């Protein structure tokens, strides 16, 4: 905190004026070393902001994210067993903090509301001097906080957000997403569905009536129709709906033999529970067994739906039963510390924290633009998802996608999903331009 200075916005204005006069340099050249960008760390510590839902329906998911972040901080500062730092292909991290500065963190509650999430993120940036914001459990929050970070000039490492929009039409240069998206879910699921349920299926979609629901329905529809499926109906359901009986009941009359539930969180738990209650899975339609599909799974949702998930296909970003070295290392250190295996939300958040720290180390600077450069088209391995690419055009990670199925005979309350197939990355890669949006230029603040 220096004496009587006009902070970043003032400087940016000067920059803009200079730009108008044709004198400007590319923004990232303006900032060098440890100054000239928002919240440049001055002492021997660096502060990260963990912005996760701590109240509301996703509070448990947020709690798991926070556990992962605390673990990541411990590992970055050289504590614990080092976790994924041992298996990560990049060896820049030394276990001495980031660039020798000890990692500290602040936490906040997004409440899964975009206003509250932005208020919390702004307080981290303005009050606590956070240099990077990460976390969250919904796409609405991710897009809102990402836009804020772009404006404020800090890096945003998205937590759990699955909508295409986050790195599609709402992508920002300062925002990065490790989690997969609706498009990848659709592309990964369709072949598995076709090979298990046949190619002449009639699908009935129930779709949560908001952006994520739309992109997911679109993705699953397109990819299953390409396999030869027919979509008989797609009905939108309100986000605030709790009882889905009036949406489930007409499904059998429609002649459909597959029900696709484009729902997440509480919506998914309730709609799946209701569908199973109606006995849909015991029915025969068109001479085939009636089936239910849930495009996006999470272990916490599977837990909420209980026995109803058995045998139901879906996709997920990561699962603790993966047997590669990275996953095993992460499950081991998380399990040792907390006594149960991590969720996919915990995994993506932990990985995001490490990826950020590693990018800073490789860039040799906390400057968001330098960090962005280091993450751009960065290829890495050993983080649990196989070889992964952080694509430069849209800041989206490309990696294998897991197709999973509810386990028939779970051995514990965490052992609810089994991996059916690891869909190779090549099958879920798409052109960066298809969702529109403009990445813009990185903003280091002042």
């Amino acid at each position: 905190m220096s004496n009587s200075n006009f902070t970043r916005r003032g400087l940016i204005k000067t920059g803009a004026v200079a730009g108008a006069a044709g004198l400007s340099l590319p923004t990232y050249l303006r900032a060098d070393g440890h100054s000239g960008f928002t919240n440049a760390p001055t002492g021997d510590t660096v502060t990260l902001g963990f912005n996760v839902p701590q109240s509301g329906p996703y509070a448990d998911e947020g709690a798991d994210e926070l556990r992962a972040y605390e673990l990541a901080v411990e590992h970055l500062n050289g504590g614990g067993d080092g976790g994924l730092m041992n298996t990560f292909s990049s060896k820049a991290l030394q276990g001495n903090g980031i660039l020798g500065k000890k990692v500290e963190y602040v936490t906040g509650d997004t409440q899964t509301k975009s206003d509250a999430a932005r208020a919390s993120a702004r307080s981290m940036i303005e009050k606590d001097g956070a240099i990077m914001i990460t976390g969250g459990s919904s796409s609405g929050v991710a897009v809102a906080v990402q836009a804020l970070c772009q404006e404020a000039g800090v890096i945003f490492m998205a937590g759990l957000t699955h909508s295409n929009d986050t790195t599609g039409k709402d992508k920002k240069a300062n925002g990065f997403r490790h989690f997969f998206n609706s498009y990848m879910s659709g592309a990964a699921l369709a072949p598995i569905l076709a090979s298990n349920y046949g190619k002449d299926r009639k699908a009935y979609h129930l779709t949560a009536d908001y952006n994520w629901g739309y992109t997911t329905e679109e993705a699953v529809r397109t990819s299953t129709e390409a396999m030869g499926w027919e979509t008989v109906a797609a009905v939108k359901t309100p986000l605030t709906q709790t009882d889905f009986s009036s949406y489930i009941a007409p499904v059998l009359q429609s002649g459909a033999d597959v029900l696709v539930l484009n729902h997440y969180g509480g919506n998914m738990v309730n709609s799946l529970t209701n569908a199973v209650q109606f006995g849909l899975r015991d029915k025969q339609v068109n001479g085939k067994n009636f089936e239910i599909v849930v495009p996006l799974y999470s272990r916490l949702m599977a837990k909420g739906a209980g026995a109803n998930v058995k045998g139901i296909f879906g996709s997920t970003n990561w699962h603790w039963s993966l047997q590669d070295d990275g996953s095993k290392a992460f499950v081991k250190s998380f399990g040792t510390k907390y006594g149960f295996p991590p969720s996919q939300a915990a995994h993506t958040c932990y990985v995001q924290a490490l990826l950020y720290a590693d990018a800073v180390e490789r860039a040799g600077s906390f400057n968001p633009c330098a960090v962005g450069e280091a993450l751009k088209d960065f290829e890495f391995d050993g983080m649990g998802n196989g070889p992964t690419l952080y694509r430069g055009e849209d800041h989206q990670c490309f990696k294998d996608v897991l197709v999973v199925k509810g386990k028939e005979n779970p051995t514990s309350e965490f052992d609810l999903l089994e991996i059916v197939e690891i869909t190779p990355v090549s099958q879920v890669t798409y052109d960066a331009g298809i969702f529109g949006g403009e990445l813009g230029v990185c903003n280091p603040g002042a």
Partner: protein
Amino acid sequence: MFGLNSKDTKLLLVVIALTMLAPFILNPFPEGSAMAQFNGGYPDLMQRLVIFGIFAIGFNILFGLTGYLSFGHAAFLGVGSYAAIWMMKLLTMNVIPAIMISVLVAGLFSLLVGWISLRRSGIYFSILTLAFAQMSYSLAYSVLTPITGGETGLQPKINDPRILDGALAAGETPRANLFGLEMGSSYEMTFGNWVFTFNAGYYIAAVVMILAFYLSIRIFRSPFGMMLRAVKSNQQRLNYTGLNAKPYTLAAFVISGMYAGLAGGLLVAMDTQVGAERMFWTASGEVVLMTILGGAGTLIGPVLGAGFIKYMENIVSKINKTVLEQWFAFMPDGIEDFIITIVYPFVGKGWHLTLGLLFMLVVIFLPGGLVQGGQKVFGLFRRKKASDEKTDGKTTPAE
């Protein structure tokens, strides 16, 4: 002064002093000290305090004076916000047109809702306003996505038309400003270990709030305000005197709707983003709680209530275990763990619990809200000074 009696002038001056000195008042603890966690003097929170203060002042004009309990006021705030962000996307990032249009649009919308809802009174009125607000929320989140952005809301984008602004320089993000003065720009003053932030956006919002507060005093003291109070105390008798109360209540409703729109527009001006959750019934409920908590019908109460709730939300929710460990580090290990175990459920993710308990405590022990608490404390001092003074310093707040 300003057409106010001396008591109201004093109150206005106190409010002016408090808002202008807020960067000092809210940052009483030096940086780096354990108590710095409780500092609230950063731009975002200061802006929110005054903006929600405006929202609550407006709500109080309707509820405090007429007794009509609207449960849908967040809809006007939301509609105002959407109008403001569209101005910023289409016209200019200058906040003046955005704020003006937000007041106007919220006023028109509240005219429509008020005209329909005010046909009923009591709980029936409350449910009508609730129904309108919930419909606005549901539609904005879903089928109106092309206009409202739905789940992801609206933010200014680089490629928006903005016909009045020149093209953005490469790499520049659109920022809300007042003729070039950016809302986010701040001046920091360091005084020993203390850091005080003076934020342009905050002061603009604060000036607007002072004006809004002044206007509300004038309304409270005007014949119009008197008429509204008459509606509250006995509408039937008012009707028997041959007066039609509806134009008065409708005017109060529209005025308070415009206050909500103003708050919505300012929210967008300070933080350029709108999401539909802003209109959910819990948001409408929040302003009701702010007003009652502070003291409905009193001038300053709603502002205090708004400040109280927003401060709790933003400060208490950020206290995590590590912070607690720092606070209590001086204690012996066993006692430290014990204290942390006791305190932990009330902070961080448990901040709602603290809020709920405080709601109950305030309403049980201070029936007049926080204002009454202030009066009690004030009265205590007075009695000490002049023990022979018989007059009860408390004025029961009108409800």
